[in-house]
């Protein structure tokens, strides 16, 4: 999705362009850009776009929120916008009103489990939770004797071990030690942690796709400017073919992620067709991140390896986002098992289902 689709996305893109210019941010050593960016996003209602108005949000379409996330990937924004959107969406599933301020969601890895005790408290450990230390609240999927619940917890009540992702963004371990949630509700019928992981995976896929679009753009620009052996390196066939491959990876990531987002936006349920879309998006975007980032770096040479250059803002985030809400290996195994269980003759009908 290379152009603004509508007013919501156009607003987001304008805010990013004004307040999240990668070059500016990269040279801002004290992080002074964060607050104005977050304020502008909040004033535009973007972090809570997926929360209904009656629950305190902006009540935007799923499609709009997905497009915002894709745009955020194109700017590689390092504020918890995607996380707050996801948390709002999760609370919305439970009919829980969304609080102000930034949020994140837990767990963020498919095999982590938060338990809901008989006393109504939460226990467990969630690793790799993005921006947990910076968030005011965490939206949680918990498992109790009566099934799955959705809870809202205050971040300052949690034990948080700070960590960093590959891209040096916060990726924390959150420990729930018999802690009482601010609000808790049973999840709707059919909702489980896998759904949340798939939703998160599609969001990360859209971010990766956006970052790849930008990796392509800055690599093509650089190849047109950088001179070696007396001509721009973009005139060398080997560089051209590498960039053509990068274009293919960026295209595949965008097609996979936007298709999955569209499938989720159209379908209420996480049925096999949506599972195929969402799992494929995470798998294919992660594969594209690996191949695409490698090409972008190869084209840039040594300069792309420096912290001074903006390349790493996109390349390392694209790589880091692979790890959240299930790696490509995780989803590949899950998808392969589902395909196998359905049987060979049901493979094509599933692939051709829309």
């Amino acid at each position: 999705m290379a152009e603004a689709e509508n007013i919501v996305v156009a607003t987001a893109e304008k805010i990013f362009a004004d307040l999240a210019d990668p070059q500016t941010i990269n040279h801002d050593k004290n992080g002074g850009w964060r607050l104005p960016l977050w304020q502008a996003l909040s004033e535009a209602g973007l972090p809570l776009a997926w929360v209904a108005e009656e629950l305190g949000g902006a009540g935007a379409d799923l499609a709009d929120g997905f497009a915002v996330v894709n745009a955020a990937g194109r700017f590689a924004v390092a504020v918890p916008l995607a996380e707050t959107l996801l948390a709002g969406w999760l609370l919305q599933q439970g009919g829980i009103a969304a609080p102000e301020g930034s949020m994140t969601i837990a767990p963020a890895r498919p095999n982590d489990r938060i338990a809901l005790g008989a006393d109504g408290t939460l226990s467990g450990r969630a690793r790799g939770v993005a921006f947990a230390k910076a968030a005011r609240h965490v939206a949680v999927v918990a498992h109790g004797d009566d099934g799955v619940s959705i809870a809202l917890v205050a971040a300052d009540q949690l034990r948080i071990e700070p960590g960093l992702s590959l891209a040096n963004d916060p990726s924390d371990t959150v420990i729930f030690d018999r802690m009482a949630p601010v609000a808790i509700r049973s999840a709707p019928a059919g909702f489980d942690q896998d759904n949340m992981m798939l939703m998160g995976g599609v969001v990360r896929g859209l971010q990766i796709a956006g970052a790849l679009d930008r990796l392509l753009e800055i690599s093509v620009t650089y190849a047109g400017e950088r001179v070696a052996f007396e001509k721009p390196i973009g005139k060398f066939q080997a560089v051209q073919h590498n960039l053509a491959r990068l274009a293919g990876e960026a295209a595949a990531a965008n097609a996979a992620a936007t298709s999955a987002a569209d499938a989720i936006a159209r379908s209420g349920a996480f049925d096999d067709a949506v599972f195929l879309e969402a799992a494929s998006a995470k798998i294919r975007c992660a594969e594209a991140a690996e191949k695409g980032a490698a090409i972008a770096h190869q084209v840039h040479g040594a300069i792309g390896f420096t912290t001074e250059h903006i390349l790493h803002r996109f390349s390392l985030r694209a790589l880091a986002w692979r790890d959240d809400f299930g790696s490509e290996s995780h989803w590949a195994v899950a998808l392969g098992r589902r395909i196998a269980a359905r049987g060979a003759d049901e493979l094509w009908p599933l692939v051709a289902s829309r």
Partner: protein
Amino acid sequence: MTALRFDPIRLPPECEELRKEVRAFLAEEIAAGTFNPFQPLREDADAREFSRRVGERGWIGMTWPKKYGGHERSFLERYVVTEEMRVANAPVRRFFVADRQSGPILLRYAPEHIKMDILPRICRGELCFAIGMSEPNSGSDLFAAKTRATRTEGGWLINGSKIWTTSAHMADYMIAIFRTSPATKENRRHGLTQFLVNMKSPGIKVNPIGQITGQKEFNEVVFTDAFVPDDHQLGEIDGAWKQATSELAYERSGPERFLETYYVLTELVRAVGPDPDTRGAEGIGRLVAQLHTMRRMSVSVAGMLQAGKEPVVEASIVKDVGTIWEQQLPHRVRDLAAFVEEEAGNRETLENQLSFAIRTAPKLTIQGGTTEVLRGIIARGLGLR
């Protein structure tokens, strides 16, 4: 740099109806013994009647005007028919080129009386077309073609040869480019003209070329004073280069461009059974995710065609990614099949398919635009050339 867009296209409801019809039709054909869907290697000797039946269903020339026998249906409907035929390994070779490449050229460049004569017969599945582009010394570089068309009374005489001409041995017509003038200094692509050639004319000899798959689709076609009448000239004299580029685009991103070895994936899923180990599950999951993604890209391109766009770069990307994928697929499936039980019921089918698919693989990144040519087109689209 042009922004690349692959918007998610939802196939409209009429496509789902159509898909059911196509599947039912193919099931009947299989039941009647027209073809074996598990056996991709064959010469399609019996496909003449099959082509007519496909034509009767209205599945050839689907997007063309009704006055020429077409059906004025959408590119998305055509997409569904193409993919179902391909996945079933249906014997489409006799009509596919006419439907996908030759017909559209005639629609655009042929005189009205030719269109009225030929297009309805294509739509009825009666005509087989071949494409005369490559020559022994001009492959990817089309504009190096040397086979001459020289002026004669009421038309042209053709001398020289074409090569790698798929289906020429059974074709009724060929659409070919011939040299009518030398190239100029300013434009080395100048001097070629496109013609419609009746393959039954005197002076045309078709020599089959053996392929490493065991098939004989390829041919060398030798022209010795073969006559082509004036009204068989297509488009501008000496200006085929303007036409040839868009022509290639037609064959660049359909589902046939990533599904050619698809059958081995289905058989692999059958062979591993309902409960594969982690290795098998991951392998299948990744391949399906890649397949699904390409199909969504390809459907998206069909949507662009339907919207009247000319997605040259997007189509090239789908073909580049798609042909690399379908080329590697048999090797990846071979890896994954390494530990399939000896007793798997379809083991022999899978082994035979793999043997054929592995031998097919090398051509997939050569035919209809090599990887190198496609990446050049993409690089041009990126503004690098």
